[in-house]
Structures are given as structure tokens and as C-alpha cells.
């Protein structure tokens, strides 16, 4: 079993690609850079496939399979190994990351062909793959944290890829600093974990939490601190503000990092830490509430955005909210399932949006598009499929995953009507804004400058990834189809060991019956009929959203303006994204800048520290200046000083003599 015993190969491939391109790529031609970058991720994908094959031959008691490569650091009882692990959850993430990453590498060879810094782009992209794979394969919190921070670094580098553009450089900084707030909580959470369990190793922590009674307060604190990190990284309320700005980066980056993989790291982390979260009901409630509110809230912002990528950005924030809602109501596998389907259809949406932007010559404003359906048919069809998937139209991937989340929120063991309601309304809004995007972009009359813009379909290395992702957006959900619609729930059963191995034991008989088979037990659930009723809701709101978008943007193109005019205040509030950026700027950014400028910079740094340093230098200089005058070169002054010295000594000797005489 070569790969299973050399898990590091999966990490080493993209790292090597990144290093080679970063060091030598500058002088190489584009095909050479391509072959290194795409070659390394292709080999990585193949080794993941090989890993899947070897994994299937492992017996369940060998899981999770841990590969411990070396001890990284030891300090007293604190010990960190560079250890990687594979279990079902890791495998799903590995497949999603490698596969979507591979497609996006291929797409980028077309999209970035005319850009400067080609080698730099691919070096960063490979480096991102390395860190993301480290994150999902880590066997302890510290190695995970390395990946966690590493993807943040790559995100920063790639958002600010066009660093000469001020808005891009600022967006990179914003992303880095905002996620830092969450990472602070995450770090404290890791430390508290170590303080509580005496280890940062996943296996040890989970065994310990399952066998020892640990106070719920501590677990809640750890869970909420770790979740803070997820809030930053996965752009949830109130730290979501960086993600829409991150759209300043190249579109493939938005697709890979800010839609499909990195932003889902928070969801993965919560799912990975499920034994802790499951024992902290308060923390679970917080996760669910934050997720549901984010899902609804950012969907409302998405309604009125006109920049095609920003609509998708808010949609990403909203979909991540659904994933956290799923984790929060205890249905981790639904969250991971939505993570996977979302990776397919959202990557597709972004790549298709990139193709649209490419076609109309760099324009991102949907108000300046329209009528592109016949001119770029492949982009149109693939994007339509992704839209149907995200809107939750039956048969497409998003339908199954979103349904499962809403079902868990509405009828699962931790069901909550308000959360379900937020989710349902959010689903309707999602459907509306996505069809609005389709109608504004591809239907109606062209609103771009037809004289100057030569609309063209993208090259084949861009359309083929679109087609493959479209295929996944349709069929990616089928192997998790619930029993209710005749599916096998293969996905849920596959992941079940990860979430049930250390699950808390139910205490009451009722809870036991509900949680008897926590992941695949929906069909045997007493709430089956309720679930049946609930299942029809998401489809209903999805169709309602579609019809409303059709009515507003196809049937009565004047209606949106009249509607906006009739609720001017609300319209302007939502259009300006609830002024959250402005509020943050006034409440946090500007006071912080003021304090930093006036207190830390001018008063402490310039006044105190520079004052002490420069002051001592100035004093030495002044003393030297005085002392220098002794050496005037004038013989007579030397003679006078000698005289002064002699007189001084005489007086001293006399004084000593007189004292001795007394």
C-alpha cells in the first residue's frame, strides 16, 4: 500500500510544484509553467484516487489511519507530531479539494493566459493546494492550524494578486485582518483544548472526551472559541465582510478559494471536532443560529447586487450559513454533503461568471450585460445548471443537500422552527437572486456596447472544466439521495462512522430513539410524516423564487424600478449592504486607527521610545561636544588644563592631609 503509508506525498506534490514555479518559473514559458503546476495537481489527484482504492481495503477498526512522520516540537507535556490522518471525512475533503482544484488549475491556464505574473499565480495556487490538503489531512490541531493559516496567507496573496490596484491590495489586507480576529479565538480554543485534555491530538482528545466526564462549561467554551475561528475563515456574521471584497482577486481564485475550498474549512473544522461540539448544546445552538441568520441575511444582500461576482460572493456566505446550520442542528453529514455539492456548483458558477466576464471584455456589472444566451452557449448552459442546483430544483445536487439541511433543521433531533423558517426563506431568496442573475446576464436585450465589445465563447481549456463541473452539479447529489425519494443515502452511511464513533450517549429513552442511528436514521424517525411535509417546502420556495425573478426581470422589466421606488428606504438600506462596512469603519476601524496613530504611533513610539533613544544619543552628543573643546589644539589651553588639574590635586591632597591630621 504505497500511498497510505506515504501520505506526505499528497502534500509534497503541490508544494514542490509551487517551489519550482516560484523559484524558476519567471524565466519559463507559459507551457512550462503549466506543465509543472497542472502536472503536480494531476499527480496529486491520481494519488488521492489511489488512496481511495487503498482506503477501501482497510478494516473499520484501523480508522482513522494515522501516519506519524516526525516529532515537530516537544516542550514538557506539550508535544506536537507532524501527523496526518485519513478517515472518511478526510477522504471526502481530499476528493473535493483535489478534484475541484485540478479543474480550476486547468481553467486558469486559459483565464490567466493574458495576465502578467503568470508563474506567480500558479505558484500561489499550488501553495494553496498544499496548505488546504494539510488542513484536511492534519491529525492534530496544530498541524491543522498550519494549514488554516497557510490557506489564509495564500488567500491574501491571491486576492491581492493585482497588487498595483489599490482596491485589490486593500481587499487582501481586509481579508487577512478580519480572519485574524477569528483566528485569535481559534488559537485560544486550541490552548484551552490542550489545558483541558493535555493533548492536541484529535484521537486523544476524542477518546478522552468520550470516556471522561468533562464539564459542559469547558466544552462550550472550547467549542465557541474554535467556532470563532470558523466564523472568520468561513465568512459568517459578523466577520463576513471580507468575502465580498475578496472578489477583487482573479476569478479562478474566487472559485477555488473563496467558494469551493478555503471558506469551507470552518465547516470542516466544526465537523472534525464534532465530539466536542455534540457535548456542548449551547455551542451547537450558537453555531446553528449564526448559520441560519447568515444564510438569510446575506441572501437579502445578494438580491440587489449588480456586480455578478458579488452576487455570487454573498451567495457563498449564505450557503456557508446553511452548512453551519446543518452542523449546528447536529447533522454534520448534511453540512459536509452541502459543502461538497456547493463546491461543485459554486465553483461552476464562478468559473462561468469568469467566462462571462472574459466574453464581455472584463465587465462585471450585470446591468451592462444581457442577451448573451446565444453568443456563449456553453457558458450559458453550464451556468444555468449550476443555478438550478443552487436554487434547489429537484434532481440537481443542491436539492438533495439543501433539503437534508432543512429537514434536519425542521425535523431532526435538534429541530428548531425559527431556524428552519430562516432557512426556508433564505432558500427562496437564493432561488430569486440566482435566477435574477441568469435573466440579467443571458436574457433580454444586450446592454453592453455592441460596437466595441466582441463577445466570444471561452477557449476549450475553460469550457471543459465548466462541462465537467456541470456534470457534477447534476449528479453529485445523487449518491446521497434520501430514502424518501428512493435513494440509498450512501454518502451519509459512508460518513456515519466519523460522526458516531465518539458521539455522546443518549441519556433519555426519547433522545435514544431519536439519536439511535443519528445519521441515517431519518427514515425510521417518528417525525417521518413531518419530514415529508417539510420536504415539499424547499421546492415550493425555489419555484416561487424562480417565478418572481421571471416576472420581474423577463415579463415586466420596468417593475424592479417601480418596486424600488415604492420602498425607497428599505431598498437603499439593502442596496448599501445594511451599511455594515460603514458601521464597522465608524465603530472599529476608525477608532482603532485613531488610537494607533495618536497613542501608539505619535505618543508612545515617536514620543516615548524615539524620545528615549534619540534623547540618550543627543545627550551623549552634547557631552561629547563639550568634552571636545578640551582638545582645542591650543598649547596654552592644554597648559591651563594641566594647571587646573594640578591645583585640583593639590587641593585634594591638602584636604586629605588635613582630615588625617585631625
Amino acid at each position, binding site marked *: 500500500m504505497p500511498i497510505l503509508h506515504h501520505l506526505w506525498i499528497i502534500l509534497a506534490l503541490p508544494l514542490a510544484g509551487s517551489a519550482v514555479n516560484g523559484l524558476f518559473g519567471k524565466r519559463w514559458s507559459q507551457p512550462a509553467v503549466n506543465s509543472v503546476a497542472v502536472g503536480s495537481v494531476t499527480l496529486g489527484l491520481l494519488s488521492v484516487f489511489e488512496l481511495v482504492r487503498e482506503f477501501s481495503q482497510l478494516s473499520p477498526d484501523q480508522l482513522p489511519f494515522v501516519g506519524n512522520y516526525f516529532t515537530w516540537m516537544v516542550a514538557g507535556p506539550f508535544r506536537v507530531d507532524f501527523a496526518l490522518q485519513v478517515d472518511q471525512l478526510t477522504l471526502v475533503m481530499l476528493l473535493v479539494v483535489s478534484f475541484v482544484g485540478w479543474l480550476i488549475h486547468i481553467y486558469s491556464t486559459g483565464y490567466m493566459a493574458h495576465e502578467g505574473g503568470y508563474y506567480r499565480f500558479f505558484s500561489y495556487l499550488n501553495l494553496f493546494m498544499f496548505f488546504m490538503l494539510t488542513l484536511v489531512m492534519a491529525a492534530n490541531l496544530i498541524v491543522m492550524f498550519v494549514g488554516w493559516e497557510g490557506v489564509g496567507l495564500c488567500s491574501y496573496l491571491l486576492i491581492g494578486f493585482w497588487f498595483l490596484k489599490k482596491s485589490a491590495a486593500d481587499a487582501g489586507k481586509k481579508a487577512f485582518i478580519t480572519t485574524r480576529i477569528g483566528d485569535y479565538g481559534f488559537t485560544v480554543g486550541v490552548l484551552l483544548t490542550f489545558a483541558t485534555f493535555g493533548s492536541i491530538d484529535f484521537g486523544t482528545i476524542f477518546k478522552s472526551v468520550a470516556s471522561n466526564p468533562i464539564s459542559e462549561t469547558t466544552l462550550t467554551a472550547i467549542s465557541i472559541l474554535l467556532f470563532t475561528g470558523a466564523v472568520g475563515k468561513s465568512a459568517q456574521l459578523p466577520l463576513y465582510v471580507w468575502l465580498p471584497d475578496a472578489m477583487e482577486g482573479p476569478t479562478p481564485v474566487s472559485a477555488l478559494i473563496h467558494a469551493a475550498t478555503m471558506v469551507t474549512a470552518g465547516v470542516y473544522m466544526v465537523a472534525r471536532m464534532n465530539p466536542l461540539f455534540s457535548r456542548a448544546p449551547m455551542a451547537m445552538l450558537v453555531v446553528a443560529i449564526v448559520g441560519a441568520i447568515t444564510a438569510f441575511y446575506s441572501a437579502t444582500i445578494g438580491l440587489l447586487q449588480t456586480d455578478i461576482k458579488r452576487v455570487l460572493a454573498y451567495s457563498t456566505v449564505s450557503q456557508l450559513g446553511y452548512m453551519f446550520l446543518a452542523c449546528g442542528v447536529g447533522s454534520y453529514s448534511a453540512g459536509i454533503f452541502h459543502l461538497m455539492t456547493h463546491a461543485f456548483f459554486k465553483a461552476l458558477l464562478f468559473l462561468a461568471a469568469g467566462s462571462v466576464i472574459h466574453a464581455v471584455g472584463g465587465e462585471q456589472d450585470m446591468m451592462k450585460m444581457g442577451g448573451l444566451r446565444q453568443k456563449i452557449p456553453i457558458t450559458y448552459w453550464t451556468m444555468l445548471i449550476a443555478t438550478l442546483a443552487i436554487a434547489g430544483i429537484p434532481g440537481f445536487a443542491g436539492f438533495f443537500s439543501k433539503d437534508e439541511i432543512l429537514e434536519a433543521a425542521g425535523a431532526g433531533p435538534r429541530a428548531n422552527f425559527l431556524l428552519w423558517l430562516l432557512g426556508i426563506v433564505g432558500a427562496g431568496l437564493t432561488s430569486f437572486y440566482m435566477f435574477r442573475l441568469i435573466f440579467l446576464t443571458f436574457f433580454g436585450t444586450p446592454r453592453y456596447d455592441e460596437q466595441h465589445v466582441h463577445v466570444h465563447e471561452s477557449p476549450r481549456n475553460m469550457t471543459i472544466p465548466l462541462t465537467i463541473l456541470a456534470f457534477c452539479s447534476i449528479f453529485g447529489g445523487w449518491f446521497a439521495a434520501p430514502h424518501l425519494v428512493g435513494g440509498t443515502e450512501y454518502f451519509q452511511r459512508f460518513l456515519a462512522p466519523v460522526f458516531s464513533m465518539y458521539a455522546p450517549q443518549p441519556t433519555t429513552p426519547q433522545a435514544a430513539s431519536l439519536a439511535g442511528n443519528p445519521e441515517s436514521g431519518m427514515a425510521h424517525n417518528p417525525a417521518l410524516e413531518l419530514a415529508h411535509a417539510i420536504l415539499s417546502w424547499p421546492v415550493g420556495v425555489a419555484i416561487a423564487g424562480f417565478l418572481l425573478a421571471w416576472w420581474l426581470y423577463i415579463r415586466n422589466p420596468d417593475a424592479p424600478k417601480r418596486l424600488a421606488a415604492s420602498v425607497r428606504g428599505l431598498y437603499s438600506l439593502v442596496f448599501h449592504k445594511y451599511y455594515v462596512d460603514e458601521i464597522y469603519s465608524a465603530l472599529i476601524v476608525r477608532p482603532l486607527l485613531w488610537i494607533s496613530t495618536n497613542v501608539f504611533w505619535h505618543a508612545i513610539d515617536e514620543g516615548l521610545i524615539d524620545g528615549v533613544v534619540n534623547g540618550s544619543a543627543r545627550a551623549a552628543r552634547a557631552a561629547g561636544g563639550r568634552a571636545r573643546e578640551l582638545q582645542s*589644539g*591650543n*598649547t596654552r589651553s592644554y597648559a591651563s588644563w594641566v594647571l587646573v588639574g594640578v591645583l585640583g590635586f593639590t587641593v585634594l591632597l591638602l584636604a586629605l592631609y588635613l582630615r588625617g591630621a585631625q
Partner: protein
Amino acid sequence: MSVVPISYYLVLSGVLFGLGVIAFVYKRNVITIFMSIELMLNAVNLAFVTFARAHNQVDGLVFVFFVIVVAAAEAAVGLAVVIMLSQNRQSLSIERINHLKL
């Protein structure tokens, strides 16, 4: 016969030394300064001789011979320096001799 008290010699020695110091500091001509050094040396010689006589010991007298020898040698070297100075800078003013300064 009355003996001149020892303090008279010492006061004279002190006065001569003080005059030498003042001349050294205030005179500008290098040769005058040179002479004031000789004056100070001789004031010290006087003090040595006085103490040698007062204590009836020969050490002070021996020291005086050394001082005279050194002074002679110094006069030879010093006058040579003065001649070179006057040739090089056409002046004997101490104000102009400030090349010890960097």
C-alpha cells in the same frame, strides 16, 4: 650668625614656580615659554636643595643633578624644535602652533 629660616627658601621657591606657571600660560612667544619652564625647574631645584639641607640628606642634591641634566638635554631638543618651527611657519607665536589638533 643668624640662620635664614627654611620657610624663606620655600616661599621663594613657590613664588618663582608661580611666576613660571603664569608666564607659561600667558606668554605667547615660544622662547619665553621655554624660559618659563626653566624657571619652574629651577624653582623646584631650590625646593629640593632646601629640603636636602634641612634634613641633612643627600637624596635631594642627587635629584637636582638629574634635573639639571634633563633640563640641559631638554633645552637642546627644545631649542632645535623652536628653530624648526620658526623656519616652517615664520612665527614664534604659540597661537599658531596648534597642529596637535586633528
